[in-house]
């Protein structure tokens, strides 16, 4: 059995433990100091690193214990952004949608110290996790830049600087998520141009996570996105995006979502394994990365563990099958 085949990973976020959820609420009301909150965020990060090792995942994440929303976290640390009021995303879930109110700039690195801390806890590689420029724009209100492209390109320079800092800090994998990339398929060229700015000159493996939208509308053009690996939700879609690869072969590494993250119940290991087998019809085992469909932050810690275990156990089954086939 070759461990380099079907490396397992996750998309980025995990559920926060109850003590951290409570602490964040207290901190928001000024009843807990930032230092006390950070202490708990570090504790929760360490717990998630240990859990990922115990589960047997190959490439780890810091779990984003210190982030609420994947756009607001950056917006809060960038000049030019204002944090807007609450907007509903679905059901009873709300987020603070940022406002681009002026020219954007990055006073300080935003994720590097968390990456360094998480990496110091494990000998396995930890991914650096960023939100891509197109998504930063699309999930914010733009009051400042004359066009969406102007805003995206300005944000690309910021994400590029952060990615370079992560690489200098030792990140071997840098994930730049673009879940909004298919929001307006006619703008895919802007997203590609911006990602080119971000990843130019990086030697780390680059990854982009894309989810919840009409992937067919941007395929195969999305293959021009200058990253090494695309990370796609598949289980939630019944793997229908794979059919697109019949006509236009998939040319990158594929991180394949094999468990749905928006259901409380976890797929059986056998169902998840079948997802990997489907992926193997299009992408060789050395380039296929099993993982959950999306970030797991909306799930409880226990549900997160269950879903990650399903990914790892399913992968073991398929690795064994591959080992039986003579090379």
């Amino acid at each position, binding site marked *: 059995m070759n461990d380099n085949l079907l490396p397992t990973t996750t998309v980025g976020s995990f559920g926060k433990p109850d003590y951290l959820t409570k602490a964040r609420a207290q901190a928001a009301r000024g009843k807990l100091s930032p230092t006390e909150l950070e202490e708990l965020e570090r504790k929760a990060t360490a717990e998630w690193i240990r859990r990922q090792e115990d589960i047997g995942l190959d490439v780890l994440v810091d779990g984003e214990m210190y982030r609420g929303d994947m756009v607001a976290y950056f917006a809060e640390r960038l000049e030019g952004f204002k944090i807007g009021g609450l907007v509903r*995303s679905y059901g009873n879930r709300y987020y603070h949608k940022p406002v681009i109110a002026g020219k954007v700039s990055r006073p300080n690195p935003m994720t590097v110290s968390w990456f360094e801390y998480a990496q110091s806890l494990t000998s396995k590689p930890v991914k650096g996790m960023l939100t891509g420029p197109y998504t930063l724009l699309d999930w914010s209100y733009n009051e400042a830049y004359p066009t969406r492209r102007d805003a995206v390109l300005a944000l690309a320079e910021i994400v590029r600087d952060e990615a370079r800092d992560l690489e200098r800090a030792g990140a071997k994998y840098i994930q730049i998520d673009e879940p909004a990339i298919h929001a307006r398929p006619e703008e895919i060229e802007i997203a590609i141009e911006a990602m080119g700015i971000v990843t130019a000159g990086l030697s780390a493996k680059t990854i982009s996570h894309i989810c919840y939208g009409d992937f067919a509308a941007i395929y195969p053009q999305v293959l021009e996105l200058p990253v090494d690996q695309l990370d796609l939700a598949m289980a939630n879609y019944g793997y229908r995006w794979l059919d697109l690869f019949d006509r236009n072969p998939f040319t990158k590494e594929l991180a394949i979502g094999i468990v749905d993250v928006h259901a409380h119940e976890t797929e059986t290991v056998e169902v998840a394994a079948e997802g990997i087998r489907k992926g193997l019809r299009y992408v060789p085992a050395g380039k296929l990365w099993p993982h959950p469909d999306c970030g797991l932050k909306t799930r409880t810690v226990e549900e997160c563990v269950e879903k990650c275990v399903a990914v790892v156990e399913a992968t073991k089954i398929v690795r064994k099958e591959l080992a039986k086939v003579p090379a």
Partner: protein
Amino acid sequence: MTIKTTVIGAYPKIGDGPDAQELRRALHRRDRGEITDAELRKVFDDVTRATIGEIEAAGVDTVNDGQVRWDDLLAPFARSWSGVEQGPLERFYDNNTYYRQPVITGPITTDGQSLVRDYAFAKGVATARLKAGVPGPLTFATLTARDDQYRSIEERTLAAADAIAKEIAGLAAAGARLIDIEDPAVVAAPKYIELAREAYARLADAGHALALVTYFFPPDAVLESLASFPVGVIGIDVRSRDTTAFDRLDAFRTQHILLGVVDARNTRLETADEVARYAERALKLVPQERLVLATTTSLEYLPRDVARAKLTALVEGARLVAGEKVPA
């Protein structure tokens, strides 16, 4: 006479202050089993009453109930119709807002009463002219995740139209005189425009003042087609994206136009002057009695304080519009 104003779709369900988040708290408590469905319904009623009050206080002429009870445009129907279930989450067009995709498991049927209780409640509260709202058949059909019943998009769209027609009849019997049919798919998927026309013929049989409300995308590809749809009102967004619609509004010879002039998807606040200028541009081609100023889409894409400010801009802009430009 001042030009009329209206809202479209959903209004923000909560605000930013703790005293404006009772619905969010109540839903959490319901999920934890701490309050009953009846107690939750009372909170929905209270928030609906406050929402209608807020829209009326801004001076809007034709109000709705803010769709406070709706998780998304399709949810009330996916829940109440037989043959339909709520499926996986998906992004709602190009918004960072999600909806449950309908899954069709059998023939779609409804008693047409899905919204009647809510409409009756709103009617008891509103002092301004009140309208109802339903999703459009093409939007319902194109946003469906899986269909085990109908063999084609055509069959599915017409089946949805029949169900929506029943809801319209139910609302009309409850006293609704104006009903918005929110159908962004008509402009998002213009290739289905003739299918949509066939579906609307079935809705028109319901025989009431119907408004086909489009949003998110410019109506350019279908504008002249919409002018021959069997509805009394057409809603189009002329604000949030580039469109040639302004130069072609004379295509609408009899229909009223809901002109989306206040961008409900960006916090940048229009001035009353900007609103008035949009209206005056439209008045070159449409007489004032057939023009109504509106938000571009649901204000729920904005924080509540911004939504309120947008309504104020809308109403103040309407009051600035000078006189009638086109003879009736």
